[in-house]
């Protein structure tokens, strides 16, 4: 690409706004700098949100993996529950089912 073409491309990419736009923007920045109330933009909190998420996931207490014994006992209790249901089924007279 020759220099002329590059200049044309640069001119094409330029941002143009009318004078009133720049004046309004300048006033808003000066007002904000003077400490007039302005709402914080949510996206500005993105780094803080990322840090908070990181802290949450790293600081959260890790639940230890269940030991083989407790797995057995859980299975045993579930088995007992099942047996209970079976007891109930057995206790109900057949004609009422």
């Amino acid at each position, binding site marked *: 690409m020759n220099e002329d073409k590059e200049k044309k491309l640069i001119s094409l*990419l330029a941002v143009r706004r009318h004078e009133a736009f720049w004046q309004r923007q300048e006033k808003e920045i*000066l007002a904000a700098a003077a400490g007039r109330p302005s709402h914080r933009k949510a996206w*500005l909190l993105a780094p803080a*949100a990322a840090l908070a998420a990181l802290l949450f996931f790293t600081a959260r207490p890790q639940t230890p993996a269940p030991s083989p014994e407790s797995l057995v006992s859980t299975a045993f209790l579930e088995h007992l529950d099942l047996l209970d249901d079976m007891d109930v089924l057995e206790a109900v007279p057949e004609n009422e089912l």
Partner: protein
Amino acid sequence: MENEKKTGPESLAGSDPENAFALLIEEHQRLVFAVALRLTASADAAEDITQETFMAAWKHLKDFRGESSLKTWLLRIAANKARSWWRWKKLRNWVGLGRGEGEEDAAAPEDFLPDRPGDRPEQLAIQADLERRVQAAIALLPPRQREVAVLRSQELTMTEIAAALGMAEGTVKAHWFEARRKLEASLGEYL
């Protein structure tokens, strides 16, 4: 730039810092806004970033070591804020709150109105269409190429771009070469 000498860090810390700050804004707001707009493709975000860039500069002026110019320092702040904005946008999209592709808040039509009211109708239509096409072409570039192209489009030198983005000058040149090739392909009809 002649004004840049007037609003150096010394004048901002001098007897009339408010006036010096107003001069600094006047001098660089077009540049900062243009960079923010081209990097985010959002008029609202660009206004926010411009405001936040000057606020941050005002607040952290004491941290400015003068190793680069105020211009590249401001652009570095603006580029970092644009990156934050993108992270926020990605996060919003990830949780399903984001807008779809191409649904960014475009500039209000009156923003394109020229200062001479007599020129209005055709200029408005042409300018708005051109703006959409230019923004779409820039959006197609990968992030680093986009940043380099946006700063180059503000007539910054390779050295200034390298300082603003914290890149090696050779890397800036390589990115600009690629970006230019792609932009020429997208916007060839206007060149």
